[in-house]
């Protein structure tokens, strides 16, 4: 018992004050691409350092519509809030069900990391639930392998209305490195309607959190 208390005292308070304060990302962090020439499709971007893309250190990338993934200039149309009715339903409590449909496990690890004490997702009223019957939204990772297509669709159908769908990571957006592969689809689009696109390979937990908070209109004004 004393050991637990002593440890608790030593560990201190570790939760970020996000979104009030945004932590500094390291120099080499590859965030939202900067458009220097032709348009950049964030959905197709794999955020690799050897791609012919310049990256900023801005972690904010989530958008509401697929066409908004394509950056033509330095303007970016970040995700819009849900309509009033949907916000009344989901605003204080959003229960999500996660389905991994062929991801490498990277995006899922970052989604899981959002639950740790540093990001502490549940302080925003967002939680992951075990059953699609209990869920308001579906978070999908991976390009959707042919072997997962049925399970994914069944999970979506098992959720009560109204429901939202969030595609996380390069694979779920456009197939990622597996785009065009024989065993996979090229992401969630065309299989299930998507309400929020979160680019990244994998997206940083704060990139995902940023998208969720924008959807629920919980972002500080002007951020």
């Amino acid at each position, binding site marked *: 018992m004393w050991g637990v208390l002593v440890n608790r005292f030593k560990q201190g308070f570790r939760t970020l004050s996000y979104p009030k304060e945004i932590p500094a990302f390291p120099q080499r962090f590859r965030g939202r691409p900067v458009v220097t020439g032709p348009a950049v499709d964030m959905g197709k971007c794999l955020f690799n350092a050897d791609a012919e893309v310049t990256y900023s250190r801005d972690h904010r990338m989530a958008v509401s519509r697929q066409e908004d993934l394509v950056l033509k200039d330095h303007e970016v149309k970040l995700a819009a809030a849900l309509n009033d009715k949907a916000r009344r339903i989901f605003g204080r409590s959003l229960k999500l069900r996660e389905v991994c449909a062929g991801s490498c496990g990277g995006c899922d690890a970052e989604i899981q990391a959002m639950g740790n004490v540093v990001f502490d997702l549940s302080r925003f009223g967002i939680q992951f639930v075990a059953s699609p019957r209990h869920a308001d939204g579906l978070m999908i990772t*991976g390009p959707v392998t042919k*072997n997962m297509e049925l399970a994914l669709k069944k999970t979506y159908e098992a959720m009560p209305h109204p429901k939202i769908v969030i595609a996380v990571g390069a694979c779920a957006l456009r197939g990622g490195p597996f785009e065009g592969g024989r065993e996979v689809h090229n992401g969630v689009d065309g299989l299930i309607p998507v309400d929020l696109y979160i680019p990244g390979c994998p997206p940083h937990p704060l990139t995902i959190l940023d998208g969720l908070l924008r959807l629920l209109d919980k972002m500080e004004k002007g951020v």
Partner: protein
Amino acid sequence: MKPARFWGVGKVGQEDLNVRNGASFGSERVPVLEEDAFRRRVLEECSKGARLVNLFGCAQDGGNTRIFAMLGMDQEGEIAVFSMTVPGGKASFGSLTPELAQAHMFEREIAEQFGVTPLGHPWLKPVRCHPAGGYPFYRVEGEEAHEVAVGPVHAGIIEPGHFRFQCHGEEILNLEIQLGYQHRGIEKMMEDVPAQRAVLLAESIAGDTVIGHGIAYCNIIESLSDTEAPPRAEAIRAIALELERLSNHVGDLGSLSADIGFLPAAAYFGRLRGEFLNLLMDLSGNRYGRSLCRPGGVLFDLDREMAEDFRGRLSVARKDLKEISGLFFGRASVLARLEGTGAVSARAAKELGLVGPTARACGHSLDVRTDYASGMFRFQHIPISTALSGDVYARALVRWLESQRSIEFLLETLDQMPQGDIYAQPAALKAGHMALAMVEGWRGETLHVATTDSNSRIARYKVKDPSFNNWMALTMAVRGAQVSDFPLCNKSFNLSYAGHDL
């Protein structure tokens, strides 16, 4: 070169081929044995202590399939490579599995990928394909027996797979695991895509083993092109590999804490895992180390200033790890839950060819970093950590011990980084060659093999994630256990679905 031994009738004079980790060799040098001789040699070497590191097929002209065996002789640090041909008209060979359980998954994979039947295989079922008629699950019948089906979509935030339990009350009589939901066709894609994309695919085999698979891929390309990555690049790769190990081992200890309901340790370990991921992000710009390893070296340097910063942060992490682990392993209620749960016997571990921390927790001192040392590990050694009991406790303990040793290795390596370049432009691939590369990823032996055709293109790319060996361990661990012990047992292995399914 060892003197030739005559294994195959009609193959007099063909020399054995024993190679080291990271070697490449002309494909024509791989002995082709008659089926009987092939079989005898595998069984004989394995009875003398060799381990079936890989057994895989390769499509040949004329509809033939060539089957390659790679036997690891851990003591010598050498791998014996030989092969046999299965003619297209015959499309079958005598299964090794009845006499050598290690061959079990490999032979199923060959059957699925090439339509060649291992005759006499006792458990010839799909590995990754989902047959139209459903998967033929093993069933226990009887009035009091019942079945529990879980997945592919699980309750938590994890990858998909199907678990089928045959139970008598709470007792698990048998667990069968059907995977393949994550199958993305990586091996085939590696043969088709340009090199710039192939490395991204390699980094996406398993998202928590980006560095492990990344290094294996780089070693393959470097070996096939006679390129040597500069020593400084090797040091940076080793640093990243150990950071990856630390983040995963510490994360696993956190998951185990959460699964037994010991939440303080779960919270602290979870936070500590992030510290290691953040070090990787400082180094490579990505929390999992993506874009760090490229054939020829690494893309990011670790200068003196960063090394000092890392050393400082790792010293703090070492102190944290000590305190949190003390909290976890020092509690009688924690130990009572872990000890004796999900035990895998040392004998089963050997027979099934288990690798990595799972094998080490059963007392087998297998570790690619020591047995088949390559890169930085040739100059700086990490002692092998083992435990004996083979249960959840042993697997947790091995993770803790390895974490401590990884931190020591990092502190030392960061203090004496080799000078020089971090990248050497790789040359063109050699035609008609084969290369193999092994890396001790955090889950264990990660193996890549590639062959090139006469036009220097990749003709076959074979990946073996340690999960491929170790999923069987989970089914052994829960046999006779209670259904409610399954989540804890599963966490204690934390195997990759994506790595298995490819």
